[in-house]
């Protein structure tokens, strides 16, 4: 008996003991980075993951891209003064601070994307994947990294420049790099991308050589390096893009990634978590949205933003076909009464469920390239050369050709053209900043809007040079002593 007990005991010990593997319990429902980045499929998935950050970036991009400008405004909610409302109003009224969740959100989303790009770019050259895959996937990744940094440098000025994957706590904090250094990195990445990427991708939605050239065009325009901008943008015109015949068709979900689209953030409705919902954010806040979207639901807590301003509505020339494709004057309520409450109908597409839409976000499109090229040429004092590009866009809008060749006058015309052509597409604020018009235009606009809306406090729309960029998030400064804040915040 005694022996049996001992044997049992020994067996029990051996069954569980001394096996080192007993303590190795790797996760089963997710993988860890040490086991990832092996195969070509891994790299493909990592690149898709980098693209995914674009979805974070574009969810609320209208707040800084459009509401900060004279293009859009919001429906004031007297009875809902929650922080998420006030903080968007603050951005619109130039009274935002460094704790603003919308300006912070963009900063964080860009860096999440950059971190994913860095993880790929650190490894891809040492990997065993094919040269073609290396070139294409690496090119896409470099484009994305350049794109994210370009967002950052335009919106925040000097920013920390991470070009390697962060793997340790010590590596997480960097000081801000001068804008010039950031631009050098952006240009390097975008140029590499342009050379590595094919003109056409097998899968629609991936960035192409055209996307990279367009990005380069924007970068050089922002740096006022017009010669290089002209080269890049003219290259874009050789890559087979063309305007959609009908303006409103550009934004139909049936025409995703159409011939005009140069860079488009991809979305898909359904339960897989890749849907979009800006349609519901951009319509008035309603107890039941059925009267606008055909789907029942209550968007009172999140609707009523990015509402066309009185100024934008007035900016359309008579006969401009784009107006009807961009703005609707109101909606008919359940009782059959028309409610005059303008909103954008650009993204009003059929969808299956409330607050779950199929709309992509077009970042760059050919009309944008044409107008940017026109602006470039005009700045290079090649004003007459600019006209064909400008008029191609106007023609589609049903407007007469422009013949003005005075640089100053044409500059105003092109700016207005960009405003209405690209309204609601998050270009207006950066256009105003790039062209040096932001303080002048927004101060004047502020005077007007304050007269119209009594809820606006007197301190709003005090547009100074400090307000041309946004603050570094307050919490970032709290954590990292290496960082400094932009002046005025």
């Amino acid at each position, binding site marked *: 008996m005694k022996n049996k007990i001992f044997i049992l005991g020994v067996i029990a010990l051996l069954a569980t003991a001394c096996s080192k593997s007993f303590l190795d*319990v790797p996760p089963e429902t997710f993988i860890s980075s040490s086991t990832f980045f092996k195969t070509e499929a891994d790299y493909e998935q990592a690149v898709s993951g980098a693209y995914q950050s674009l979805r974070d970036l574009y969810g609320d991009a209208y707040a800084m891209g459009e509401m900060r400008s004279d293009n859009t405004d919001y429906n004031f909610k*007297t009875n809902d003064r929650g922080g998420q409302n006030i903080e968007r109003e603050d951005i619109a009224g130039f009274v935002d601070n460094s704790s603003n969740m919308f300006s912070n959100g963009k900063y964080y989303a860009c860096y999440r994307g950059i*971190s994913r790009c860095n993880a790929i770019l650190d490894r891809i050259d040492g990997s065993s994947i094919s040269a073609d895959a290396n070139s294409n996937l690496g090119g896409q990744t470099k484009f994305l990294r350049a794109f994210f940094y370009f967002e950052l440098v335009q919106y925040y000025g000097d920013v920390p420049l991470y070009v390697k994957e962060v793997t340790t706590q010590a590596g997480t904090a960097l000081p801000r790099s001068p804008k010039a250094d950031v631009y050098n990195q952006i240009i390097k990445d975008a140029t590499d991308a342009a050379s590595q990427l094919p003109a056409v991708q097998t899968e629609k939605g991936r960035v192409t050589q055209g996307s990279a050239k367009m990005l380069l065009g924007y970068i050089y325009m922002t740096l006022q390096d017009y010669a290089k901008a002209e080269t890049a943008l003219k290259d874009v015109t050789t890559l087979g893009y063309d305007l959609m015949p009908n303006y409103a068709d550009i934004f139909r979900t049936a025409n995703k990634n159409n011939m005009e689209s140069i860079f488009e953030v991809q979305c898909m409705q359904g339960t897989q978590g890749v849907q979009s919902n800006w349609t519901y954010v951009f319509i008035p806040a309603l107890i039941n949205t059925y009267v606008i979207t055909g789907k029942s639901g209550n968007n009172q807590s999140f609707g009523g933003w990015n509402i066309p301003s009185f100024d934008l509505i007035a900016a359309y020339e008579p006969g401009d076909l784009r107006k009807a494709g961009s703005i609707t004057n109101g909606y008919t309520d359940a009782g059959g009464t028309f409610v005059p409450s303008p909103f954008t109908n650009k993204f009003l597409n059929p969808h299956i469920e409330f607050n779950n839409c199929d709309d992509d976000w077009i970042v760059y499109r050919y009309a944008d390239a044409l107008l940017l090229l026109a602006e470039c040429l005009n700045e290079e004092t090649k004003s007459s050369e600019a006209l064909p590009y400008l008029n191609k866009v106007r023609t589609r809008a049903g407007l007469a050709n422009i013949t003005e060749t005075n640089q100053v006058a044409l500059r105003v015309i092109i700016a207005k053209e960009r405003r209405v052509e690209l309204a609601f597409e998050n270009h207006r604020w950066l256009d105003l900043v790039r062209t040096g018009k932001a303080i002048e235009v927004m101060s004047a606009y502020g005077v007007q809007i304050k007269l119209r809306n009594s809820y606006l406090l007197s301190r709003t729309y005090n547009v100074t040079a400090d307000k041309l960029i946004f603050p570094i998030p307050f919490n970032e400064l709290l*954590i990292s002593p290496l960082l400094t804040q932009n002046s005025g915040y």
Partner: protein
Amino acid sequence: MKKLVVNHGNIKLSYQLLRKMKLTILLLITSVLSCFSAETYSQITKLNVVENNTTLLNIIRTIENQSEFNFFYNEKVNIDRTVSIDMTNKSIYEILDKVLANSTVKYKVIGRQIALYDKNEMEPFLLEVDQDRNISGKVADKSGAPLAGVNVVVTGTTQGTVTDITGNYSIDIPSGSKSLTFSFVGMVPQEIIIGPLTQINVTMVESAIGLNEVVVVGYGTQTKKDVTGSVSQVKTDKLTDFPVSQFSQKLQGQVAGVQINQATGIPGQGMNVRIRGAASINAGNEPLYVVDGFPITGTINDINPDEIESISVLKDASASSLYGSRAANGVVLISTKKGVQGKTKVQFSAYKGLQVVPQKGRPDMMNAQEFAQFQKEYREDQAIFQGTTIPIPSEYQDPSAWAGKGTNWYDVLLRKANIENYSLSLTANKDNLMTSAILGYFNQDGVVINTNFKRLSLRINTEYKINDKLKVGINLAPNLTTDITNGTDGVLWGGGIIQNAILTSPIAPYINDDGTLPLTATSPGLFPNPNWYRVAKERTWNSKSVRVLTNAFIDYEIIKNLHFRSSINGEFGTRKTNFFIPSTSGYIFDPPPRRTEASITTNTYYSWLNENTLTYANTIGGKHNFDVLAGYTAQQYKNPYEYMYGRGFPNDQIKTLNAATVYNLTEDYNEWTLLSFVGRVNYNFNRKYFLSAAIRRDGSSRFGSNNKWGNFPSVSAGWLVSDESFFPQTTALSYLKLRASYGLTGNNNIGNYTYYAAVANTNYVFNSVLSSGKSTTSLGNTDLGWETTAQTDFGLELGLIKDRIFLTYDYYQKTTSDMLYQVNVPQSSGYSSIYTNIGEFKFWGHEFTLTSKNFIGELKWTTDFNITFAKNKVMKLGTQNAPLGGQYDNPSITQVGSPIGMLHGFVFDGIYENQAEFDAAPHHATSAVGTVRYKDISGPNGAPDGIIDNYDTQIIGNPNPKFIFGITNSLSYKNIDLNVVISGSYGNDIMNRTLEYTQNLDAVFNVTKDVAKRWRSPENPGDGLHPTTNTGTPLARYDNSRWVSDGSYLTVKNITLGYILPFKNSAYFEKMRIYCSIQQALVLTKYNGANPEVSSNGSSALYQGIDFTAYPVPRTFTFGVNLNF
């Protein structure tokens, strides 16, 4: 040879017993079974007795401790006589000759028995009797009242009986039986030598604080006297009548150093237990629960409290270090009921009661008339402020029309609710088989409609003694619980039904005149709301849990005193939650009609533990007592989880997921493993000097690959000062023990896979097809390890007036370091945080436990009192010592130099009552006359800057109590017993975050009555607390000191009055007791919310003392019965 444990007290009793038999001589009986012949022992035993100026009694004790001799004497022998003696290696005869020289006392040695008698009395004589026979008698307490249910056992066997309602017993004893042991809870066990007697009547006395009580400690038991760590044991017999579902509710106020709060009244939930203020940032504060040696992985709340016999709380490191990397928050050892020696016992108990929500603490919201008045005034003030006409909706135009009408939304959700409990237990101990079975059914309807908790539980514990060396046991405890919770608690945007309901317009009806229920409930200017009555009533939120705890062991005595024990423990649990929200239900901003949704969550866990231990205990040289433990254990835990969600239901009729058309699925899986070695040595010299050392070595799958193993050692020592010869032998100071300990424990609740750099799914779309994406979403850390707590404890145990008053004092100091800390990193790195071991908290405190037997006669009155002064301080945090929390919108801050989890916000400084005051004071960008005024604390340069902004927040309250206490008074007189349990907390603050909404000035919610006294104009400034409605409430909604109030409380947790019915010799049952009880009888507090024990963030130490509205804790009235068959 088994030594009879006979102490001073029961020798005297033996004497009393004998005297009752009218014998004028002492009878001494030796057993014929002795190994040595009687005379041999007394001749060969050599003793060392060196005592100076001590009493005869102490000499007797010394001899008894060193040998197997037992002394008998009567009151004519002066045992307090002072003697001195210095004899080594001498026989008992030589020693007694010397000690008793020059006295009138003579002695006689008969085997191991020594009789002392006065020389004028007759010499004792020896009787040897040995045959099967029957013994009967009566057991009574000191007052002469019969004691029912006393265990009477032939010593050293399982043969026994219990006394009946009249205190009588009858037992057949086999030949060779030496003595009978009488035992009863709370009484000193007595061993009476049978001798020639056929009738033995016994008087039991209450145990003097039970120094011989067996205390369950980690991997074994010890007598209380021998324990060198800080261990508090609670026997549940005094707590059986509490009408509560969870054992931790019964423990409230019972144990010094253990803070137990009932944060919410949700049936079956809401208890937060913290031992010695244990706090961690991320790794949890809850203690480790060990049920019959098995560290359980599921919730402790499922366990039927009636199954529990005793609870040991291991507080210091020496007591808990054998649980190593899981012990830093303290360990709670739960022992379930085992079969007891004696005859088969069947007990049935039941109670039924009613729960009601007390009036005090209910939210004081405006009624319909007041609300209409407020809405009217709001618009009138707006019109003046903006200089425009603002129409007043018809609903608000004539407030007086609402007098006596409208809806009290809080009341609408409440009801009087039933509670009932039935428990049937059977214990048997026969033919070496010991069994106990407990069947329980508990059913509690919640006081909020559509809430309920039910539990059906069974426990069967069996132990079989195969032979003298081998013992096996199997315990099996399945239970089934169902609960209906319904999301009652929390803030409105989190869906908390109670907060949402009280903020709903009181002029909106919850039921129409025709009896139908409206879909929505709102009035002009308010947010769209569902009818919260319907939400509460119609939403399905049910969980069913099945849990089986089982263990089996064998215990084999390899050689004498060397035991090998091996156990296999298994735990299986599964919890399935069904959720269904019909189209008629909804949320704020999302009222019906809305889409119908349903989900099923299945959370299953399995855990097994194998433990193999060797223990050896022995005594060397008569005085060196030691026991040794060595063991090896392995445990594994697996936890699959599935969540299924569906929507797109055609209607509300079919609530199951098959009616949905759109689905979402989530699956998760968690696993951990733990390998451990344990070792311990306990040593004592003469039961006077105690030393103990223990160690556990844990290897855990949770720790980073560079840091897999950890060692957790401890040492402790004790000194029984009162047993020293120099200690004055007075009845005033009867017992004194000092003890000290130091040790390390760990906290491994750091997540199962935290050290891995996780690559998560980050999907995208190409070509309108989902493209699987993957990204590293967290920073890994292969150095990640457990948190370590180093703890020092000094204890003192003091018995006064023959131990009738017993005081235990502990001072502890502990430092938790290497805390699992989610260090925020700049998000520009791509990550928001990294898990590291960093930071340091320090805890220290004083714990006093006092037990006083105030009356021990016919009227018995015992008071147990405990009080704990606990403090803590944050010593270190992340690399920059950056505080946790403390942003301007965060109500809590944990910062270096302060206690953990301080309340944080602006300092309320009244209202800008007029323009002059406004101009003179600092203000915020949104400030105006009539708005809230905060103090200008600081600015970007560290000095007040005249601007109210983010820099002006500071600590505004301390949620850590200065002391917590508990008082239990137990009284009994004849057949009546009364038990009153009080627990309380002093000096802690609570932030009533509900006020952000219930005093919101945007006129979008119903508000508290005092909002009527708000600022309306410089001429009508109100009470100086509530700002104007004109500008809304931008700044008034941030955390500020006006929401902080004193959370001290004293709660009479339970009052039970019982009566034992005076039946005699009933054919049906032995004993019947009826009682009535009030749970949560009285709450004394200045706190303005519903429950001063509230904690909306559960047991989190970092965010404690915050009230976001919780389920009310009801007052419960019950009537119950206990029947013994």
